[in-house]
Each structure stands twice: as C-alpha cells, then as structure tokens.
C-alpha cells in the first residue's frame, strides 16, 4: 500500500473528477444512456485542466507532430477496449475469480475514457484550419484456440495483454510523465497511468492464481506465449513514427524519441518482465538476448 502511495502521489485511484466535462459528444448515442455513461467516465482519478494547455506556444509543425501521436494513441486505446472485452470472455470461459473478471471489464471502460481523452488531445493539438487526423478503429486479434484448455487460453492471453503490454505501458507512461511539463498533457498522462497500474497488476495476480490451480500446464502455456507477447510490444516500439521532429517543446508535451523508447522497453524486459516471470517459475527463453543492448541501440 505504501508503494501505491509512492507511485501514485496524490492520485486517488477511486477518486472522482468533479471538473469532468464530456469530451467527445459526437461519439455518444443521443439516448438516456449518456447520463450513466458520464457517471462511469467521472470515475477519473485525476482532474484534467483542459484550459491550461500550452498549445498556443507551439509551431504548426509541432502541433501536427503531437496531433499525429495522439491519433496513434487514440487508436491504441480504442483497440484496448475490444482487447479487454475479448479477454473477459476468455476469463469467464476459464471460470476466473470474480475480482479478476470485474477488474478486466472495468479496464475496458477505462480504455474508453483513455480513448476519449486522446481524441480531445487530437482536437487540442491539430493546427487551426488543418484537417484533423482520423483515428482508424481497430479490433482485438487475441489468439483463439477452442481446442486448448480454457484456463491455458485465458492465462496466455492475460500474459499478452496485461503482464507484458500493460506492464510496459505503465513503465513507459511513468517515464514520459517525468519529462512532460505541459499541465494538460501531464494530467492526461497521469490519469491514464493511474489506471494502467491496475490493468497491469491484474495480469500478475491472475498469473499467480492460475499457476496455483493449474500447475505445470499453465507454466508451459505461459512460456509458449512469452516470445509472442514480447514481440508484439516490440512491433509497436519499432513502428514508423508520424512525420516531424521531436523538438524540446514537443517533448514537454509528452513525447519521447524512438531511441529512448527502445531503452525503456529493453530495461523493462530486463528489470521487470523477465525477473517477474522467472520468479513465478516461467522459463524466459532468449528474452534477455532478444531485447538486450543490441536491440535497444539498433535504431
């Protein structure tokens, strides 16, 4: 609990944002469901000072660069909605404990909120008069093999989504927050980060539980998934970036260079993921070599 407080600072994970305002009215149904949706969205642990953005001090090129990145971020958050929805189906099929399922479903709701915040950031950064970039909606492609034991599928997909992807997301968000000076961007990143901590922790808890009930079969399923899960995140880190320079001003609004990202991922693999899986008795294969110094400095 002390660690939680250290990590989250003054963030109350169950707090409510009293300054909440709907962020994307055009993405709503226009029905009475909206009121309940806003109640869910209000469970945002960090108030966002939308009017304190320093966007006006940026050049159009810098704004376009940031709008491009927030577009990518909105796509990733939107994709995570279906990822957690599909993972919840796998967890239900494996009769996972109720707390694991409820946190997984809540994670899906968190991802809707994250996507909304990213959309608002696109609006903020898009240069005046420029065509706003349109996020491309994506759908989860989590592996599905109806022939394998349901516990193994749930565990393997939890490892992919939560233990690897969300744990890395938490690490890189924490590092990005440290170099972000813009108050609005800082608050948005902190808000997302405070949710991601729980998205990541849910996987490690379920992994522990699944090993206790499923033994060697679960360990084998996890070991088989590990290289695929690590490669999945590496594909994202290695991806081409939107056009435009990452200037000092752009960094202050929450961007790192691809080279810096590689160092964060490589360090995360070596100091977080590999020790975690090893402690649970899961063989880690060539993970350390695959994402070691050579990979970190390849870009």
């Amino acid at each position, binding site marked *: 609990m002390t660690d939680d407080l250290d990590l989250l600072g003054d963030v109350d994970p169950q707090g409510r944002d009293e300054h909440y305002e709907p962020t994307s009215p055009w993405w709503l149904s226009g029905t009475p469901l909206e009121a309940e949706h806003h109640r869910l969205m209000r469970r945002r642990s960090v108030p966002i000072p939308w009017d304190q953005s320093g966007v006006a001090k940026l050049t159009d090129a810098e704004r376009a660069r940031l709008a491009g990145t927030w577009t990518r971020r909105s796509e990733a958050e939107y994709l995570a909605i279906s990822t957690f929805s599909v993972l919840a189906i796998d967890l239900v099929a494996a009769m996972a404990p109720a707390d694991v399922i409820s946190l997984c479903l809540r994670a899906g709701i968190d991802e809707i909120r994250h996507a909304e915040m990213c959309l608002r950031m696109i609006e903020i950064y898009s240069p005046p008069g420029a065509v706003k970039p349109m996020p491309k909606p994506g759908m989860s492609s989590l592996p599905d093999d109806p022939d394998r034991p*349901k516990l193994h599928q749930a565990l393997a997909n939890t490892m992919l989504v939560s233990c690897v992807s969300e744990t890395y997301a938490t690490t890189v968000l924490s590092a990005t927050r440290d170099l972000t000076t813009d108050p609005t961007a800082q608050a948005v990143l902190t808000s997302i980060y405070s949710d991601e901590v729980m998205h*990541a922790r849910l996987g490690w808890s379920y992994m522990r539980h699944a090993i206790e009930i499923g033994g060697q079969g679960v360990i084998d399923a996890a070991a088989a998934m590990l290289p695929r899960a690590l490669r999945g995140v590496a594909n994202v880190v290695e991806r081409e*970036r939107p056009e435009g320079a990452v200037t000092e001003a752009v960094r202050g609004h929450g961007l790192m260079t691809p080279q810096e990202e590689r160092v964060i991922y490589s360090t995360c693999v070596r100091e977080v993921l590999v020790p975690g899986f090893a402690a649970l008795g899961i063989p880690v294969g060539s993970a350390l070599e695959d994402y070691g110094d050579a990979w970190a400095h390849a870009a």
Partner: protein
Amino acid sequence: MTKHRELASLVSNKIWRTVVVAGAMLATAPACGGNKPAPVAPAPADPAPKSVEAQADDGKKAADEQAAAAAKTAEDARLLAEQEADKAAKDAAAAKEAADKKAADDAAAAKKRPRGGGDRPTGRGFILS
C-alpha cells in the same frame, strides 16, 4: 542517454515493486499451501456435447427396438408394423440429419469468436511518438 538509462532503471524499479511484486504477491512463495482455501478446479463452461456418432447410435437403437417390437406382433398386424418400422427409420434418419447439422453449426459457432484480423501479432503498449 546515460541520464535516460538511469530514468529507465528508476521507473522499472518502481513498476517492479508496485505492479509485479504486489500483483503476483512475490513476497510469499507460490503454491505453498498456507491458509488459502483450496481453489476450485475450473470445470468446462459447457457440458461436453454428445458426439455425432453417439447421437447416430441413439437413433439406430430406437429404430432397432421398434423393429423388434414389430416382429412380435401377430401376422395380421405385420403390414402395419412394417409401415411403423419404416416410419421410425425415416424419423431416425431425419433426427440424425438434424443432429449432424446442429453439431456442425455448434462447431462452427465455437470457432467464431469475436476476433479481428491482422497477420502479425501487435502488442498494445502505449504509443509514444
């Protein structure tokens, strides 16, 4: 870059403690018994459906029983019994056909879970730049 490496290690250490150690309860040894109630082993979500072969056997058995019953009837009921046996066989065949179709549909439905496409695995992470 040295400063950045230090930041990466600092942050990783924080995440190690708050996400991995806390989540997986690494301070306590795994599967060591203790006071934790024994977890219930997961049961299959749906009872195992009867195989197509088993359903076909059931249909054949019914037809055989009806045929045997018909053989015991008096000679003057033979034609009627034959007609009934014929009908039962037809019903059994129809039932088998329906069972086969249902089994095929169920198998197809079991494979059709909501998943998107994509030819290479894509992790989520948080897109940074």
